């Protein structure tokens, strides 16, 4: 699903430049649930941004579902993001003046899907995250866990190839974290490819594979025995 070869990225900091990614190579198969771990400054967020087409690589190859991702202008990047990727953020990033349903329907709006259809889809996805009854509520009326579930429904609504989650449990307490991970695992079991950036080992162990980054290179890439989150809920 994802092939990355010799990925380099550096940021200019005034006169000096900061070499963040120093040749990353890794592949992700369809249906994998990968945790990307690493301490602060290891380059894990940069990697996720490049995977999410929010940022471009300086060097190297990135192929997503047999489509080479390079030389994208903003418009094309937006189209690809919409088509291929679903994002889940640490701080949820729901639009605060839109109801849960409208938030979930937003990527469908940018796909140009007619209004009626959009709402049916969005409600279906809200139902799948167990929040059908909350569809008319604003984000401010939802708890943290509920917000993240709405965000996951939103990421799923556009039926992406890959789900990218940047510290999805970073702002949640343990119990809620496990509930969210349970949801992520269930989506993965349905066959969706998911990448989770986290620095919490217990969350990482709920994935099927852990990629450990340090100073811009992968120092460890191992398959793990998945801990089912439902066991902790």
């Amino acid at each position, binding site marked *: 699903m994802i092939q990355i070869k010799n990925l380099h990225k550096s940021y200019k900091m005034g006169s000096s430049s900061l070499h963040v990614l120093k040749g990353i190579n890794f592949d992700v198969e369809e249906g994998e649930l990968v945790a990307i771990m690493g301490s602060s400054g290891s380059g894990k967020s940069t990697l996720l941004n490049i995977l999410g087409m929010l940022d471009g690589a300086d060097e190297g190859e990135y192929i997503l579902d047999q489509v080479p991702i390079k030389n994208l202008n903003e418009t094309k990047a937006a189209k690809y993001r*919409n088509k291929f990727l679903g994002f889940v953020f640490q701080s949820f*990033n729901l639009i605060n003046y839109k109801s849960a349903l409208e938030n979930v329907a937003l990527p469908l709006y940018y796909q140009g899907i007619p209004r009626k259809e959009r709402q049916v889809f969005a409600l279906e996805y809200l139902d799948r995250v167990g929040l059908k009854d909350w569809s008319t509520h604003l984000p401010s009326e939802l708890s943290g866990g509920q917000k993240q579930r709405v965000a996951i429904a939103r990421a799923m609504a*556009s039926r992406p190839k890959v789900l990218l989650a940047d510290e999805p449990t970073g702002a949640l307490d343990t119990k809620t974290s496990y509930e969210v991970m349970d949801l992520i695992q269930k989506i993965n079991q349905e066959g969706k490819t998911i990448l989770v950036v986290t620095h919490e080992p217990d969350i990482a162990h709920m994935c099927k594979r852990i990629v450990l980054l340090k100073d811009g290179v992968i120092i460890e890439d191992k398959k793990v025995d998945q801990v089912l989150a439902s066991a902790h809920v």
Partner: protein
Amino acid sequence: MNSLKVLFDRDTWQEIFGSISKNKTRTVITVIGVLWGIFIYIALSGAAKGLDNGFERQFENIAMNSMFIWAQRTSIPYDGFKIGRNVELKLSDIDYLKKRVPEIQFIAPRNARGVFGGSVSPLVVRKNKSSNYNVYGDFPEYTKIATKKIYDGGRFINEEDIKYKRKVCVIGERTQTELFEKDENPIGQYVRIDNIYFQVIGIHKFVPGGGFESDGDIFIPFETYRQIYNSGDRVQWFTIAAYDDADVVAVEKDIKATLKRIHRVSPDDERAFGGFNLGEIFNKIMGFSKGMTLLSLIVGIATIIAGVIGIGNILLISVKERTKELGVRRALGATPAEVRNQIIIESVFLTVIAGILGIILGAFVLAGINAGTADLTDFPYTNPTVPIPFILGALFIMVFLGTLIGLIPAERAVSIKPIDALREE
């Protein structure tokens, strides 16, 4: 065009309503900025138009480019004549003037009793009622310069009256009420003017603003007047109308110069002939009211611009506040063009809504002014309106400026990289 499709898409509007209703207070205050601008524009230019109309109404019964010319005493000795000689206008001057001053369209010699000092108003008698009224000797041409509204069934003096020196007269509204019974039709009846019977042929409606004339004036044929009052070739004054495109000030000068030649008056004598140039005064007033219109236009448009800039400013702040939201939208697949369009449409939408509200409010105020001044006949203010092209022009300016000013926040919004917007603080 894709961008046109966006305009008619219900979803676009839903997005826009969503974002502008997010901060209602700010939206309202912003809208008030433009609303005030267009309101000022409408109210001012409507008021200027009202003044314009008012002046025009004041002058509606007299040709805009007309003048009166009369003779006085000389102030310079010339050609063997002493200073202080009385000069008199003659009927024969008309042909000279018409030949020498081709800009003259109509020229009407007039004589009158009771108007200027030296003659008394003749006594007019009808049965047992009588009163004194001014009496004018007129040619039919006079009505081509100063319109006389004659009531139904009557007429003004015509060529036949002049030719046969008929003893007919046109009386005023006041004359009618003073000399005749209420239910009586004066037309065809006789009145006695200085002991000579005249048949009434018409009643003129008095229109205010026509100089020294009044609602009691009686008009009789010039030739009849000449015979009765033995005025010979003498003419008290000329009422002259120049062609529409003529320069009335120059025409007046030419006429006076010609008269000086005819009557052997020094070309430098400024006092020998008097003149009252309505056209000149009218032009000054019209110039004033045009200036007012221009001023109101400039002030109004400047205020609109200030308001629209306010909208741009607010949207800029709004974009700044919504950095994160716009980043999320971009991450979810909004293209830069979609983000840009949304901000521009927001700007134009706010501008146009504000504009329409301002136009409505301005119209109400103008209607109020109109109702308040409707009964004031001596106040030059009539029917304050704003021409439709002005309104359409203002709307166009607003859409144009709204788009232009919306471009600034829109470009700002597009320049936000989703990665920066989403970065955790």
